[in-house]
């Protein structure tokens, strides 16, 4: 049967941007593949271009004309002679149309086949599938017109959750706490869903007030083999988007862990899953509920990679080439990921933009940083604001947590408002150290969070120093032209410096 012959991938186009494009390029280069980047006009200076062997412009800043533009991406693939396309996450990664178009263009789509994407992408259908497979789901509806919503709410009681049928990443999601807010929420969610997925359909679920969000990594090959490889705890969220993930999940019983991993494998087999994906669950006390299947590489995949010593992107490429799945070794140690966003934690995580004026990234034993940050680049607000994933690995949770704290202390980025300090304090909190938290933890922690008074005052003093620096000559260290002169910085304009630390 031809379906079981392996295919060769030599030239890989990465239909994405930011940290995930760089991460995929790195594995592809290590595998000896020729890598092809694509970029929008807004990303002409973006580091993922420089990392690839070649780069192709696919359109203007607006995603639907570039990173969501199937034709433009296929044109670039044809021009570059690509034989495979990796979609990353977000953008077209879960689009059955895109997977089908790639296939029809004679190229390999590095992801699940279109019918699996369609099955997973239909959130309502996936709920039905789970029910048939005997996996519990959160009580809910299959549609969400105003009448259905009202009667569902009467039946289960508020709060209820509005979700997009084509959803993902928290878009089109709304919690409704009482009937007065219902209509406005339905309308806003519908608009958001329509804008994000070109599909305004919604459905409803009972809103669990303080569940844990736990998911399972799945992998399936072209030969019918499906495995589930460990869980990730993803309860720390803001705006229904994850900001901290870890593996293994702390404080769930061995039995719950086994049950969930089993359910994920069952569901993956039921949809004939191929390539990498994730099955998400909510855990509420002794109950667990299927949430959805994410038919793509997940943002938080590195925590699984570190625990299992297994390159998931390499596995995706091997599976796409129809090679048989390689069994991962048993897991070891503990990994935590913190997502640093260009957002203002003080103001409902409002998106921020700017230029990278100063950058120091963390490093050290057990620290991995997946990022597209680089000196002097512009951080726009056209796309998702993920700047960097700081991932800490340790022999146990305590070592990973302590390494993460030390790493976030090393994270210095000036020019863009970002969430590193918030994450640092979140990780330092007693609740996180105990591992006892639910999806409400971030919103409970947030209101009282603020920098120490000393930190604020020091910052104000530095602002005054910078304000007084006037027309100080620019730093000449990084000039790349002429002789290297001594550093000049705003501080220096203020007079004589002696080393404070020479005691």
């Amino acid at each position: 049967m031809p379906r079981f012959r392996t295919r060769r991938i030599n030239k890989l186009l990465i239909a994405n941007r930011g940290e995930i494009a760089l991460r995929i390029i790195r594995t592809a280069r290590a595998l000896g593949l020729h890598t092809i980047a694509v970029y929008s006009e807004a990303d002409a200076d973006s580091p993922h271009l420089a990392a690839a062997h070649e780069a192709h412009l696919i359109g203007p800043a607006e995603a639907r004309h570039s990173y969501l533009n199937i034709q433009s991406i296929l044109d670039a693939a044809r021009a570059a002679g690509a034989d495979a396309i990796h979609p990353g996450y977000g953008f077209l990664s879960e689009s059955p149309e895109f997977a089908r178009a790639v296939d029809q263009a004679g190229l390999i789509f590095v992801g699940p086949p279109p019918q699996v994407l369609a099955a997973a992408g239909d959130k309502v259908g996936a709920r039905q599938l789970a029910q048939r497979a005997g996996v519990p789901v959160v009580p809910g509806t299959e549609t969400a017109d105003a009448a259905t919503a009202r009667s569902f709410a009467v039946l289960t009681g508020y709060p209820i959750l509005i979700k997009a049928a084509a959803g993902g990443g928290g878009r089109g999601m709304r919690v409704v706490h009482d009937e007065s807010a219902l209509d406005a929420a339905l309308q806003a969610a519908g608009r958001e869903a329509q804008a994000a997925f070109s599909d305004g359909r919604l459905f409803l679920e009972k809103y669990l007030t303080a569940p844990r969000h736990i998911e399972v990594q799945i992998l399936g090959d072209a030969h019918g083999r499906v495995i589930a490889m460990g869980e990730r705890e993803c309860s720390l969220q803001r705006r229904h988007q994850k900001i901290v993930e870890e593996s293994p999940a702390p404080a769930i019983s061995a039995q719950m862990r086994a049950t969930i991993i089993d359910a994920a494998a069952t569901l993956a087999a039921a949809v004939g899953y191929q390539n990498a994906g994730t099955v998400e669950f909510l855990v509420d006390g002794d109950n667990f509920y299927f949430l959805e299947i994410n038919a793509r590489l997940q943002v938080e995949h590195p925590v699984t990679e570190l625990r299992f010593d297994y390159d998931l992107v390499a596995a995706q490429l091997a599976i796409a080439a129809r090679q048989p799945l390689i069994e991962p070794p048993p897991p070891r140690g503990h990994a935590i990921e913190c997502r640093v966003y260009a957002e203002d934690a003080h103001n409902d995580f409002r998106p921020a933009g700017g230029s990278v004026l100063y950058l120091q990234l963390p490093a050290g034993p057990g620290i991995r940083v997946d990022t597209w940050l680089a000196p002097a680049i512009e951080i726009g607000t056209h796309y998702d604001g993920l700047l960097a994933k700081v991932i800490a690995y340790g022999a146990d949770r305590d070592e990973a947590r302590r390494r993460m704290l030390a790493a976030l202390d090393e994270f210095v980025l000036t020019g863009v408002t970002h969430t590193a300090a918030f994450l640092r304090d979140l990780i330092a909190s007693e609740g996180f150290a105990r591992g006892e938290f639910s999806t409400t933890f971030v919103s409970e922690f947030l209101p009282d969070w603020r920098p120490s008074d000393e930190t604020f005052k020091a910052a104000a003093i530095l602002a005054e120093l910078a304000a007084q620096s006037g027309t100080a000559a620019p730093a000449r260290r990084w000039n790349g032209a002429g002789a290297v002169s001594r550093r000049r910085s705003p501080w220096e304009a203020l007079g004589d410096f002696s080393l404070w630390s020479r005691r």
Partner: protein
Amino acid sequence: MKFRELSSGRQVEVQLQQQGSTIQARIGGAVAQIGRQLLPDGAMLIEIGAVRVRAFAARAADSIVVSVGPHSFTFVPLKASRGASRSGLANPLVTAPMPGKVLKILVAEGDQVEAGQPLITMEAMKMETTLAAEGAARIKRIPVSEGQMIDAGAVLIELSPLDSSKP
């Protein structure tokens, strides 16, 4: 100089008192000292209590951006006295916190609004954000319209204090 820190909304006044190996500053009525050391890459090590932190500051378009370790701040210089502060209205301008699109304008010129009342909804990065009034005020002017693309910092709504009889 007097600053407003954009994220927290905190206002602070700083006067540097002396330049030397230690920064002496008068801040919030007290005198603070910070040890400092210049680093080759243009950053600075400062001493806050017993802790040494890497810090950097730079002037951006209308503000000064400052990092103190993983913390990021944006300070906007304030004039010593301002019309707005006289009227008791903290900020007579509602500005766009990020670039995006005006989705819905929820008030009309001349309306009287309460603290916390939603004024305008904008969309950025496919998310909706609703801006609300910081205090009671009257809507003086709305220089944008629904559907309009706007830059960060663009004035969306001008407010006037309630004791002003003119709309």
